[in-house]
């Protein structure tokens, strides 16, 4: 905080200066954005501010970069855009942050308040547009209201169930003179997230756990948001209950731990899916029974009683009825639960964990069929993980490469895994990796991207090259929209309608990378894989792009087809696990 800000006295300044002073006061260190007409007044004081502004190439990149920054650092990410198209370009990133509960604040310029509603140049009702995809939003037309709106936006974005908040400020409010005084106080009578779980509910949970023979801890993104890794590790060490980590919670519990069954859901492991289908107690913490996890709801975890802990009460009972609801912060809940469990004696979980260990051992995630002739995408991703060291941060796009990255990267530490789960936003990878690298400049940041995803937002590599943000992007180039192609192969009789991207021909990713100021590398045979990865790891002064030309027919297995039961999981085409052999 600057001295100006600490001062109690009111100061006369413009609304724009008041905005920048407020952002400084709330502790913002970086903003991703693009100026334009309506937000122009804000960019003038920003020029002199200690807040770093990174000029991106597309506003969607600004929003995803703010997300990447937020996930990697645990702080609120910030993006800025002008009115109209600038603001609407943020929409995909806001929707993504809303679905995955990522704390970001978007600041947009709006046309002069007298012109609002007249279809003025570059006018869009961005507040109305973003009602359903923000946790909250504001339209500020009075310059005196700017500090309070900024304080409230950061409070709402970062507390309770985190999420995106948009602050739309009219140009006249930015230009007018106002009195600035920072109190940091937030007046939100209708906003009171329940953080501390109810003791009696947690005691009840401990009792249910003590009675269970086949309990499983199902860990979701909420545990990551609550930074509950240590509490989770303690709880597992204390109880020996097996763990399943959803896509959003990868890394919250180490994959190398024998009790980690991996990821559940449509492309989950047999062990994770088996654990959910056979458990008698489903302990859901910070997860929301997403349809990609549950498949057909009516046959999901059929024998289980459900303890559901979430900081958002609306998630409890939304998709699956909870036998025991607990509203509260996941970290606090697990700590409290550990304490309550000291008074309980658990049943012998030996047969249950042995059953799951056997599933885990026999049904490993399909690594593909190796060949000297082509690159296996699974193998490429695995080698990147193995060669990059334990502190590496990974971002992904959406599709096959994302699922392989979820399975084959080493997920050992919290907050190292950035992916678009709920929204499934292709194009998330490059800007999110950029944001993560800005927040964690000393970490190695890899983006594992698809050739389809990469072509949606790769322009941010120019931003990276110009602003000393040396990320590494691995394009898993299967020349197609791979996941859609997989569905066409499986469910549309192999008719590959409009999924061939011809990326072997165009664009030339190596040349494209070079044109954007990056180092461009390519690997086409297994022998080249380690070489280019090592080469990329040695380059720290420029972004690197590697074009891994991989086998286009590789598929993601296991798979639970959409709308079917998790019990019908397939480990390969027409191949189901031999459940009948499993006696428990």
């Amino acid at each position, binding site marked *: 905080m600057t001295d100006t800000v600490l001062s109690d006295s009111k100061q006369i300044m413009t609304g724009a200066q008041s905005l920048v002073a407020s952002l400084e006061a709330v502790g913002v260190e970086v903003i991703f954005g693009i100026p334009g007409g309506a937000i122009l007044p804000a960019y003038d004081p920003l020029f002199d501010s200690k807040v770093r502004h990174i000029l991106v190439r597309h506003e969607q990149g600004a929003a995803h970069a703010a997300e990447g920054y937020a996930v990697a650092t645990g702080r609120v990410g910030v993006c800025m855009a002008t009115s109209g198209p600038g603001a609407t370009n943020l929409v995909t990133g806001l929707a993504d942050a809303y679905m995955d509960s990522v704390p970001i604040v978007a600041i947009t310029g709006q046309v002069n308040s007298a012109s609002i509603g007249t279809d003025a140049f570059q006018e869009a009702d961005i507040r109305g547009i973003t*009602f359903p995809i923000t946790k909250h939003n504001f*339209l500020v037309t009075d310059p005196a209201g700017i500090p309070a709106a900024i304080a409230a936006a950061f409070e709402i974005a970062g507390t309770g169930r985190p999420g995106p908040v948009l602050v739309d400020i009219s140009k006249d409010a930015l230009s007018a003179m106002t009195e600035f005084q920072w109190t940091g106080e937030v007046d939100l*009578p209708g906003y009171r997230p329940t953080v501390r779980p109810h003791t009696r509910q947690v005691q009840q949970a401990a009792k249910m756990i003590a009675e269970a023979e086949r309990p499983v801890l199902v860990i979701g993104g909420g545990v990551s948001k609550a930074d509950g890794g240590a509490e989770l590790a303690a709880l597992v060490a204390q109880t020996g209950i097996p763990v399943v980590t959803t896509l959003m919670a990868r890394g919250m519990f180490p994959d190398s731990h024998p009790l980690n069954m991996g990821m559940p859901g449509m492309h989950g492991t047999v062990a994770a899916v088996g654990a959910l289908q056979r458990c008698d107690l489903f302990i859901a913490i910070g997860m929301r029974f997403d349809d990609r996890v549950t498949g057909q709801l009516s046959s999901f975890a059929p024998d289980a009683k459900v303890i559901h802990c979430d900081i958002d*009460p*609306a998630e409890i*009972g939304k998709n699956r009825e909870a036998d025991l609801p607990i509203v509260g912060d996941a970290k606090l809940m697990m700590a409290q639960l550990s304490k309550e469990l000291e008074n309980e004696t658990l049943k012998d979980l030996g047969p249950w964990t042995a059953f799951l260990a056997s599933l885990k051992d026999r049904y490993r995630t399909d690594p593909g069929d190796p060949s000297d002739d082509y690159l296996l995408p699974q193998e490429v991703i695995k080698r990147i993980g193995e060669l990059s060291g334990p502190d590496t941060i990974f971002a992904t796009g959406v599709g096959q490469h994302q699922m392989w990255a979820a399975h084959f990267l080493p997920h050992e530490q919290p907050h190292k895994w950035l992916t678009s789960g709920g929204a499934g936003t292709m194009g998330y990878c490059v800007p999110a990796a950029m944001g993560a690298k800005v927040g964690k400049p000393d970490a190695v940041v890899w983006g594992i991207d698809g050739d389809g995803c990469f072509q949606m937002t790769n322009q941010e590599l120019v931003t990276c090259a110009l602003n000393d943000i040396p990320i590494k992007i691995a394009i898993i180039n299967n020349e197609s929209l791979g996941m859609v192609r997989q569905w066409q192969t499986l469910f549309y009789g192999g008719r590959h309608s409009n999924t061939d991207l011809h990326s072997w021909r165009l664009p030339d990713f190596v040349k494209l990378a070079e044109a954007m100021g990056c180092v461009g590398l390519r690997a086409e045979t297994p022998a080249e894989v380690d070489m280019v990865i090592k080469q990329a790891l040695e380059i720290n002064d420029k972004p690197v792009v590697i074009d891994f030309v991989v086998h286009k027919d590789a598929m993601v297995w296991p798979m639970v087809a959409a709308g079917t039961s998790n019990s019908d999981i397939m480990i390969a085409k027409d191949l189901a696990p031999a459940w009948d052999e499993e006696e428990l």
Partner: protein
Amino acid sequence: MSAFHTLSVLVQNQPGVLARISGLFARRGFNIESLAVGPTENHELSRVTLVLEVESDAVLEQITKQLNKLVEVIRILEFDPGEAVRRELILVKVRADGRNRSQVLEIAEMFRGRVVDVAPDSVVVEATGGYGKIQALLMLLEPYGIRELVQSGSVALGRGTRAITDRSRYDKTPKSERV
């Protein structure tokens, strides 16, 4: 089994609140039977009365929880039939000329309605009441010919001393006198 439920929602009186509420119902696929909104005893607050037809208690619970997540929503009460007074207002233009005007007036009177406009061949009746009473009145007026009908959403207030603002920052009762 579907049933009608009345929710009383206390909100901050700020622009866009109604759009947020109606938008929430639209996008989550909840149906609104009627909606009434207006100022309250406190100029900072508005009160929305929602009548909803829902299939199950789980749906009602989900609606309440989602509404509660809106930052401007201060408090939500669900009224059981016995514990609240409910009223809706209608203005109804009925065909009535010299031959049958007195009959129409008689019906209106039975329901404690008032005639607020008279023309040679029509009258406008104003009436308030609960859902059942209003429906009964309309049923009796129907044979004369209803030319026009406007109807407010239902408003509701809990019976007894307690108020929706109790124990909130908007509670004006001295602490010593609170129930």
